[in-house]
């Protein structure tokens, strides 16, 4: 279980009237962080990944507090799909040679099979990365994250071009295999289809 208790985000302006952040994501759950303000979302995502501390409150993973000494260990339990896709790759398949550990070896053939289920042309895997549409690149990274089979998956600011009615059931099947999924989105459909949500719309 991933839990944030009485969390106040660091590095962003925080109105005094705003309530602390409290939520938990259990195994098998899809959790939506619904918001549009990039700096708060970035601060929250980085806090969850142990890349920055909370101003106050704490984050736990499976009951253990995430801090400077444990953050790197817990990050091995996370798959993270960013919104900023400005990567120095020639092709999207360069992600398969990324240096982080993967439980299973992910092959191009496996990616092609998954892309077929989304009705996306698998030849895009051979296209130049810089010419790939952002939402396709993010979808492929989501597939890589799912195939990496880690307990927690965080998707930062889902591109709205990815159809929710295709993606959310795919992620639900993944969550059902004892995974927890956190999706950041400003799409009402995604929020509606998730099990729980947090509305992160802070008016300063």
């Amino acid at each position, binding site marked *: 279980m991933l839990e944030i208790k009485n969390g106040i985000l660091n590095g962003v302006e925080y109105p005094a009237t705003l309530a602390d952040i409290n939520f938990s994501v259990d195994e098998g759950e899809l959790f939506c962080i619904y918001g549009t303000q990039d700096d708060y979302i970035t601060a929250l995502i980085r806090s969850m990944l142990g890349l*920055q501390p909370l101003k106050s409150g704490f984050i736990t993973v499976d009951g253990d507090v995430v801090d400077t000494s444990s953050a790197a260990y817990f990050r091995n339990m996370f798959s993270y799909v960013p919104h900023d896709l400005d990567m120095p790759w020639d092709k999207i398949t360069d992600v398969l040679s990324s240096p982080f550990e993967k439980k299973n070896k992910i092959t191009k053939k496996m990616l092609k099979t998954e892309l077929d289920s989304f009705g996306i042309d698998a030849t895009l895997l051979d296209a130049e990365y810089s010419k790939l549409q952002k939402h396709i690149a993010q979808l492929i990274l989501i597939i890589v994250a799912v195939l990496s089979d880690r307990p927690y998956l965080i998707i930062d600011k889902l591109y709205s071009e990815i159809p929710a009615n295709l993606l959310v059931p795919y992620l639900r099947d993944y969550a059902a295999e004892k995974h927890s999924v956190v999706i950041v989105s400003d799409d009402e459909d995604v929020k509606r289809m998730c099990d729980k949500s947090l509305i992160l719309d802070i008016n300063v």
Partner: protein
Amino acid sequence: MNISFLGICIVILLLCIPAYIIFTYKLNLLNKFAMSVVKMFAYMVLTGVFLYYISLWNSVLINILWMIFMAVIAAIISVSKARLSMNKLFFPSFVGALSVVIIMGLAILFAVFSFKNMFDARYMIPIAGFLAGSMIECNSKSLETYYVGLKNHNAIYYYLLGNGATHGQAVNYFVKRALEKNMIPMLGKMAYILLGVTPMILWSMILAGMGVIDAVFMQILMLSAMLAAAPVSLLITLAVARVYSFDAYGQLKNMDKTA
């Protein structure tokens, strides 16, 4: 070699040539030229005074202090030219420069001059100067490339970190870019060094009584050391700088000059 009045007149005459050309063609470079000449004389006089006394004393301790001083100067200029925080990067840059000047310098001295002569000021001082000087431009460009890249194009860094990569794995792309930036100037300058500078150095060494083969070997050794010095000092600098550049969560600190 004796410096004669005629020699001094020839120096002045040679300097008058570019001055005349600038004046005649109205090149608007007179101030820059004058500043360069003044800087050259000031630098050469100061260096001459330092080297005169260092050679006179020829003390191992003073020679080593001079090598340390060279490393300090190299570090200050590298960080300053990279427009980065001196507070955070002086020490890592100094450690990188010192490691190369001392270890590589002593290795070269031992290889060429044997243990008996390696601490002689005639040999230690120029080698320290060569090594320190070869690092400055390369390291300043590569430090700037590394930190500006991490600041402005950090998507890959956070992607790798967020997926459990180690810090070293996450910065690897930026280290590679910094190393490319580090080695390109030196590799590019090799032609200039070989054609423009090497003949002068070889001639000086032969004039001083060294055999031709020894002089050529010495030159190859120095060029090889200069090629190795910059990337090695950069890698050491970046390793030491990690503590000063990143917080406990792996976030890059503000590395701007004013920070």
